[in-house]
C-alpha cells in the first residue's frame, strides 16, 4: 500500500509539474491571463502529490515496511522513533524526496505570495522555471532514484537500520532539513532572475521581490552548515568541526555565492549597479547547489558526510550544465538591456566596498571550488588519485577571511555614492582603537604569530564597527519616532547583528583551531591523571544495552566534581563495527572532548581515553545562533513609514547620481 501511494504521489506530482509548465507556456505564447492563472494552480497538484509520497514514506518507516528496499536499508525494528522519521534523509532516494518536498513547499509559498500577479508574464516565467526544476527532481524520484522500489526477494524480518553515524544525535533531525531549505530556496530567486531575463524586465523590481526569499534561503543554509559542523563535532570523534570535506565544501560554495549576492543586491537596489553581476551570482548559486548535489550524491568523491552513492552522476551533471548554459545564454542575449545605469565612482564608497567584498567572496568560492574538483581533473588527465585537504584550503582562504573581516569593519561606515575617506576617519577611530586594544590584549595573553594577532585585531575592529552600526540604526529609528524595540528590530540592525555573529564565529574558530591540545591518558579504575590543566578521574567501565545499540563506556569525572562523562564506543543494530561516541563538557571558555580510544577489556583493566581541550568552541555555535537571529531581524517586514521612505529616497538619489549629503544615521542605517 505504501508503495502504491508513494509511487502514485510522485507520478501525480510529476504530471502536475509538466502539465502546469505546458499550460503556462501556452498561456505565455497566447498572452492569455486566464491560462496563466490556471497554470499557476497546478502547484497544488505538485504539492499534494509530494505530500502524499512523503506521508507514504514516513508511514512505511514507522511501520517498518521492509518490502520497500529503501526502508529495509535505512530502518530497523529497533530504530528509535525519531530516527524512524529522519530515516527519510539517511540516503539518496529519501533525500531527494525531502528535496522535492521542500521545493513544492517553496512553490506553494510562491503561488500564495504572487497570487494576485499570476497573470504577470514575469511571474509566469518564474513559475515555469520552478515547474521545470521540480519536474527534473520528480523524474529522478520516479525512475533512477525511486524511493519506493520494491525489495527483490522475500521481505526480511528486520532491516539494516540507518547508518550508525546518523542515529545517535538529535541534530540529524534538524541539520539536513535546514540545509535543504537553504539549497532549494535559491530556486526561487533563480527562477525570477530567469523570468526577468526572458521578459526583458531587468530592472530591479524582481530583485526587490526576491530579496527576502534569497535572504531566507541564505540564513537557512548558513544555520544548516553550522549545525552540520556541530553534528560532525559531536559524532565523528576527532574533536574538529570543519575538515574541508567535499560535502562540507558543497554546502559552503552556494553559501559564499549567496553571501556575495545579498551584499551586491544592495548596490543594485540602491544605485542600479552590478545588474549583470547579480544575475550571474544567482545563476552561480543555484548551479552550485546542483553541482553540490552531484559531488555528494554521485559517489565520485569519498566523504564522511556522503551517505549514498549512485549512478545519478551524469544526469545531475547534465542538469548542472543546462542550468549554467541557460543562465549564461540568457544574460548574453539580454546584454544590451543590462548595461549599468551608473558606475562605481569611488572605491572608497559603500558601493566600492561592496565591490571589494564581492571580489573577495568570488575569489573565496573559486578557490574552494578549485580545490574541491581538482582531484577529478587530475584523475581524468593523469589517472592519478590525489586529494586536496585542509592545508591548502586553510592557506588560501585565511588571507581572504582577514580581508573580509577588514571590509566588514569598514564598509558599514562608508556613505553611498561618494568618496568617504574623511567620513571613515571620523567614524572608524573608535572601532579602530577597539581593534588595536584587541591586538594588545591578544599579545599580552601570549598570542604569537602575525596572522593570528591581526585576526584578533580585525575581529575587534569589525565587532566594534558592527556595534556602532547597530547603535546608529537604533538612534536613527528613535529619531524617526519608532519605539525602542522597533528601532532595534529591522533590516539595518539585522545586518549588523549578522556581522557580530560572524565576528564571534571567526574569533572562536581561530582560537579553537590554534590553541587546541590533544593527547591520551591510560587509566585504571579509580586512577586520576592531570592533562592540559584538567584532572581526569576514571571510575569504572560499563556496558549499556538498549534495543537499538550496545555501548561500552568509561565513566569519568573532570576536576573531581560535576556530572559524569561517558565517552563510549557503540554498536548499532545488526552492525558489528563499533563507532565512537565522544563525551563533551562545554564551558564558555573551553570544551573538554573525551573519546574512548581503547575500551576496558574487563573489570579492573585499564582504558585509554583521548583528551582534546579546545578553547571557545561553544562560541562557534552561539555565533551561528547570532547570525540566525540577525537574519530573522532582516527578514521581518517593517510596515512603518520610515523604512519605506528611507529606501525610496535613496534610490531616487542614486538615479540622479546626486551627492546630496544625508544625515549621518539615515545613510548608514539601512545598510
Amino acid at each position, binding site marked *: 500500500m505504501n508503495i502504491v501511494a508513494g509511487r502514485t504521489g510522485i507520478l501525480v506530482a510529476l504530471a502536475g509539474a509538466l502539465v502546469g509548465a505546458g499550460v503556462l507556456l501556452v498561456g505565455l505564447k497566447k498572452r492569455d491571463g486566464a491560462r496563466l492563472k490556471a497554470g499557476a494552480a497546478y502547484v497544488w497538484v505538485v504539492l499534494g502529490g509530494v505530500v502524499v509520497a512523503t506521508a507514504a514514506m514516513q508511514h512505511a518507516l514507522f511501520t517498518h515496511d521492509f518490502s520497500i528496499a529503501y526502508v529495509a536499508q535505512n530502518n530497523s525494528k529497533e530504530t528509535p522513533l525519531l530516527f524512524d522519521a529522519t530515516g527519510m534523509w539517511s540516503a539518496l532516494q529519501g533525500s531527494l524526496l525531502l528535496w522535492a518536498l521542500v521545493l513544492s513547499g517553496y512553490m506553494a509559498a510562491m503561488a500564495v505570495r504572487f497570487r494576485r500577479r499570476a497573470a504577470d508574464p514575469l511571474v509566469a516565467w518564474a513559475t515555469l522555471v520552478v515547474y521545470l526544476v521540480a519536474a527534473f527532481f520528480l523524474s529522478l524520484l520516479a525512475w533512477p532514484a525511486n524511493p519506493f522500489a520494491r525489495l527483490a526477494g522475500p521481505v526480511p524480518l528486520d532491516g539494516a537500520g540507518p547508518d550508525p553515524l546518523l542515529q545517535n544525535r538529535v541534530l540529524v533531525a534538524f541539520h539536513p532539513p535546514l540545509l535543504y531549505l537553504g539549497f532549494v530556496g535559491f530556486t526561487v530567486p533563480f527562477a525570477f532572475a530567469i523570468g526577468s531575463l526572458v521578459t526583458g524586465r531587468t530592472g530591479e523590481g524582481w530583485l526587490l521581490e526576491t530579496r527576502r526569499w534569497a535572504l531566507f534561503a541564505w540564513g537557512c543554509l548558513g544555520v544548516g552548515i553550522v549545525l552540520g559542523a556541530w553534528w560532525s563535532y559531536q559524532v565523528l570523534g*576527532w574533536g*574538529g568541526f570543519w*575538515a574541508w*570535506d*567535499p560535502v562540507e565544501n558543497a554546502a559552503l560554495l552556494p553559501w559564499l555565492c549567496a553571501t556575495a549576492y545579498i551584499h551586491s543586491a544592495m548596490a543594485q537596489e540602491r544605485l542600479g549597479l552590478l545588474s549583470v553581476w547579480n544575475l550571474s551570482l544567482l545563476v552561480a548559486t543555484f548551479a552550485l547547489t546542483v553541482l553540490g548535489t552531484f559531488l555528494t550524491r554521485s559517489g565520485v568523491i*569519498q*566523504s*564522511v558526510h556522503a551517505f549514498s552513492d549512485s549512478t545519478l552522476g551524469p544526469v545531475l551533471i547534465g542538469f548542472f550544465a543546462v542550468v549554467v548554459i541557460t543562465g549564461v545564454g540568457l544574460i548574453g542575449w539580454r546584454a544590451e538591456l543590462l548595461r549599468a545605469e551608473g*558606475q*562605481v*565612482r*569611488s*572605491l572608497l564608497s559603500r558601493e*566600492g566596498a561592496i565591490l571589494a567584498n564581492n*571580489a573577495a567572496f568570488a*575569489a573565496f568560492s*573559486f*578557490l574552494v571550488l*578549485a*580545490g574541491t574538483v*581538482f582531484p577529478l581533473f*587530475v584523475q581524468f*588527465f*593523469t589517472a*592519478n*588519485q*590525489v*586529494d*586536496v*585537504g*585542509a*592545508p*591548502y584550503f586553510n592557506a*588560501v582562504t585565511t*588571507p581572504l577571511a582577514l580581508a573580509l573581516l577588514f571590509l566588514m569593519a569598514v564598509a558599514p561606515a562608508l556613505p553611498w555614492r*561618494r*568618496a568617504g575617506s*574623511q*567620513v571613515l*576617519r571620523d567614524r572608524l*577611530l573608535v572601532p*579602530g*582603537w577597539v581593534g*588595536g586594544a584587541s*591586538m*594588545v590584549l*591578544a*599579545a599580552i595573553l601570549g*598570542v*604569537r*604569530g*602575525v596572522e*593570528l*594577532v*591581526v585576526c584578533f*585585531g580585525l575581529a575587534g575592529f569589525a565587532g566594534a564597527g558592527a556595534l556602532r552600526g547597530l547603535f546608529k540604526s537604533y538612534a536613527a529609528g528613535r529619531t524617526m519616532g519608532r519605539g525602542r524595540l522597533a528601532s532595534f528590530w529591522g533590516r539595518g540592525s539585522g545586518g549588523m547583528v549578522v556581522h557580530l555573529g560572524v565576528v564571534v564565529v571567526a574569533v572562536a574558530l581561530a582560537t579553537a583551531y590554534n590553541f587546541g591540545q590533544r593527547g591520551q591518558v591510560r587509566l585504571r579504575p579509580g586512577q586520576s591523571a592531570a592533562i592540559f590543566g584538567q584532572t581526569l578521574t576514571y571510575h569504572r567501565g560499563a556496558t549499556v544495552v538498549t534495543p537499538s545499540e550496545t555501548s561500552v563506556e568509561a565513566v569519568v569525572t573532570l576536576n573531581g566534581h560535576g556530572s559524569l562523562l561517558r565517552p563510549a564506543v557503540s554498536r548499532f543494530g545488526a552492525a558489528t563495527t563499533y563507532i565512537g561516541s565522544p563525551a563533551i563538557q562545554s564551558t564558555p571558555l573551553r570544551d573538554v572532548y573525551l573519546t574512548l*580510544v581503547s575500551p576496558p577489556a574487563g573489570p579492573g583493566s585499564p582504558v585509554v581515553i*583521548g583528551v582534546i581541550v579546545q578553547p571557545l568552541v561553544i562560541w562557534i555555535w552561539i555565533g551561528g545562533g547570532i547570525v540566525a537571529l540577525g537574519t530573522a531581524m532582516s527578514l521581518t517586514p517593517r510596515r512603518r513609514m520610515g523604512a519605506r521612505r528611507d529606501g525610496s529616497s535613496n534610490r531616487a538619489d542614486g538615479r540622479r*547620481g546626486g551627492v546630496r*549629503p544625508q544625515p549621518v544615521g539615515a545613510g548608514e542605517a539601512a545598510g
Partner: protein
Amino acid sequence: MAQRSHKEHPGPNRRLTPARLGWLGLLVVVVVVVAVSGTKPTPRQSSARRISALEHELRCPSCADLSVADSTEPSALAIARYVRTQVHAGATNHAIVSYLETRYGQSILMVPSSSTGAGLLWDAPFAIGAVVLATGGWLAWRNARGRAGGGSGQQ
C-alpha cells in the same frame, strides 16, 4: 562634511587634529604589536616538531579528510608509528614521504605535490589577486581621470 574634506584635501600644511593624532597613535600600536608578536623565537628543528609537521602533511588512509595527526584510525596510528621511528632513525622528511607515496599513492598527501599539476592550484590565488588588483587599479585610475576631467562622467 563634503566641504570639510574639500578644505583638508589639498594643502601640505596638515595640522594635527585630535582625530589625526588618534589614528597616528593607533598606527604605532599596531606596528609595535605586530612587530612583537611576529618575532617569535625561531622554532628549533626538534624531532617532536618534525614528527608533528609530518603527521599534519599526511592523510589518514582510511578516513576521508583527516590528517594522521587528527585521526586515531589504525591505519593512521601505523603511519604515525612509522614516522616516529624513521625520524628517530635519522631519515629525511623527503625519504619518509616518498616511501609512503610508493605504498599508498599520491593521495596519502594532504595536498598533492607539484608533480601532479598542483602547482596550478597554488598559483590560482596569485592569479586571482593580480586580476583583482588590476581591476581595482583600473577603476581607481578611471575615477581619478573622471574627477580631473571635471566630472564629465561616463554615463
